[in-house]
């Protein structure tokens, strides 16, 4: 009897929490269709904010910056992180404590400290040498830095989960070092590489603080643009662009759900 009331109240709490989690997103989506530019009252349905987006050069270039940043940084991080992940695995019997500390550093460092150290560093290097002018390049460098550990750890844990004699079997079956990489290692860790790439991509698109401090005047990404617009005074266009980003996440969520379902089956 008591068990049932507990279960029922938990169910209620669950739905309440879900509402709490999705209410802010729902409000953003709702007001993106608002006919008036009031942020408090919904006055009627309209597409006008979306239409305005298409004509907004700044938003389009911010979107392009976001994509370039996410893709380029993820690719670099995938290569570099994959190498570290394999190195950590292959030499796991050595004392690699320093490497572990190094790899966890970007994860544990608070975003703001991460962002301002890079900014201070880039500014000074640029002042002294002329290299590393704040812009998309410095943002890519910063993003790769926080993506590397995630890629390395995902790849490492995939290797650890393998039967170590597989490496020997590949050698034994006449695979040269290059062929071992192409025909054995890469295909075997392919699932890990895919999820590492998607995680890196998501981390990059999700990041605001580090991008904000390493960006230059021309390299605003979508979150930076939205931030600026909010600071200047809310424009309903932000609701529209934010809704599109929420929709993108929702699509990714559904895809990942289907994937996990298929894996179970």
């Amino acid at each position, binding site marked *: 009897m008591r068990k049932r009331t507990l279960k029922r109240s938990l169910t209620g709490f669950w739905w309440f929490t879900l509402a709490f989690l999705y209410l802010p997103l729902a409000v953003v989506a709702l007001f993106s269709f608002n006919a008036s530019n009031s942020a408090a009252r919904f006055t009627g349905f309209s597409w006008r904010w979306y239409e305005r987006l298409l004509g907004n050069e700044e938003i389009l270039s911010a979107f392009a910056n976001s994509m370039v940043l996410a893709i380029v940084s993820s690719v670099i991080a995938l290569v570099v992180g994959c190498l570290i992940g394999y190195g950590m695995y292959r030499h796991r019997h050595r004392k690699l404590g320093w490497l572990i500390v190094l790899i966890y550093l970007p994860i544990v460092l608070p975003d703001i400290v991460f962002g301002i150290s890079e900014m201070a560093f880039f500014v000074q290097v640029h002042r002294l040498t002329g290299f590393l002018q704040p812009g998309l390049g410095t943002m890519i460098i910063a993003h790769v830095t926080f993506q590397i550990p995630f890629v390395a750890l995902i790849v490492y844990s995939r290797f650890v989960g*393998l039967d170590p004699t597989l490496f*020997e079997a590949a050698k*034994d079956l006449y*695979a040269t070092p290059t062929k071992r990489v192409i*025909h054995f290692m890469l*295909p075997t860790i392919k699932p890990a590489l895919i999820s590492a790439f998607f995680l890196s991509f998501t981390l990059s698109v999700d990041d605001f603080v580090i991008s904000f401090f390493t960006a230059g005047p021309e390299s605003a990404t979508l979150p930076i643009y939205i931030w600026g617009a909010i600071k200047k005074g809310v424009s309903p266009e932000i609701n529209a662009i934010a809704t599109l980003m929420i929709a993108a996440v929702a699509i990714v969520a559904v895809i990942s759900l289907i994937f996990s379902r298929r894996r179970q089956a």
Partner: protein
Amino acid sequence: MALDATTSDAITTDSIPADSITADSIRTESKPMTDTLTLEAADTSSTEMEESTRDASSIEMQGLHKRFGRNTVALDGVDLVIEAGEFFTLLGPSGCGKTTLLRILAGLEEADAGRLAIGGRDVTEVPPHQRSVNTVFQSYALFPHLSVRENLAFGLKMRGMPPEQREARVAKIAEFIQLGDLVERRVDQLSGGQRQRIALARALVNEPDVLLLDEPLSALDAGLRSQLQVELLRVQKRLGMTFVFVTHDQDEAMVMSDRIAVLNGGVIQQVGPPREVYEHPANAFVARFMGHDNLYPISARDGDRLTTPLGVLRGEAVGEGDLLLIRPETLDLLPGEQQGDNRLPATVTERLYRGSHAEYRLEVGETTLQATLNNRGRRLPEVGDRVTVSVAPEDLVTLSE
């Protein structure tokens, strides 16, 4: 039964139960050595590859040393010659160096010192992918990202064989090992025994000079194990390939091998055919490892008369050594007390009835003695019986510690 099977001359009848087939018995029924897989697949494979199996390769090891870390000595000077076409077994307890030796043959481990030649060619520093040697791993090591068919074709693909030839070779081997429709499965859909056979096929399809087997049967249950022992033996005899087999199981070693090398502490203790190793162990370690417990120190010698804790026993053409070995199955138990040469009064303290035979623990004076009696329908002595142990002089073996 297991012990009887090793005295192989006894059973060369045609209707042998699968679990008692021995190397000798298969040799009599195996086809001539020329009937190799290569010849069957001759139309599709390159000449170079045919050569490799038709002339099975010998292996020569000279002064191999291997150390792990600072203190662990895995191999301490191994000199060994394995003949072409031999089923050769490296036998020993875990940590004796047998697996290290196998890995050095495969090229997966590099010896710290010493030379290794396969088929007359020095391969000491040749990396594994350039050696015509393949391994059946203990864990099978089938590639999880590939199908069974792709697993089988992996080695050929890495050597750059064109796809059509590859497919033909894979089909041949699948037929030879009788894989049936297993070829179409995914690796994770296979049972242990199936994995074992795929792993064997994946190695054999490359037609290596030497096949290495690292305890390939140890993960299987007893029934499947003896079935696969027979299968492995037949494959080896038909192909005439050099097999180097690693195991810690002396029964398995005796059933399968042409010759056995017993290792301990990184040193070869004895090399010889199963019968020699079992019946004339070179030292106490080999004797104990082969399952012998009846070892007695010889305190005095007078010609062929040996003084032991059991009493004075007369041998026949006994060799050197200060230890006496009496194999339990050579003993006979006579009812009551009977006097005479090589007759020992004893009391039965324990009897293990095994159906085909019975194992006895006897008390002879201050010491104990084990005996095995075949169950031939006569009365088997009971616990507490006073009996007389009869030892034939020619069955006494001496060895040194």
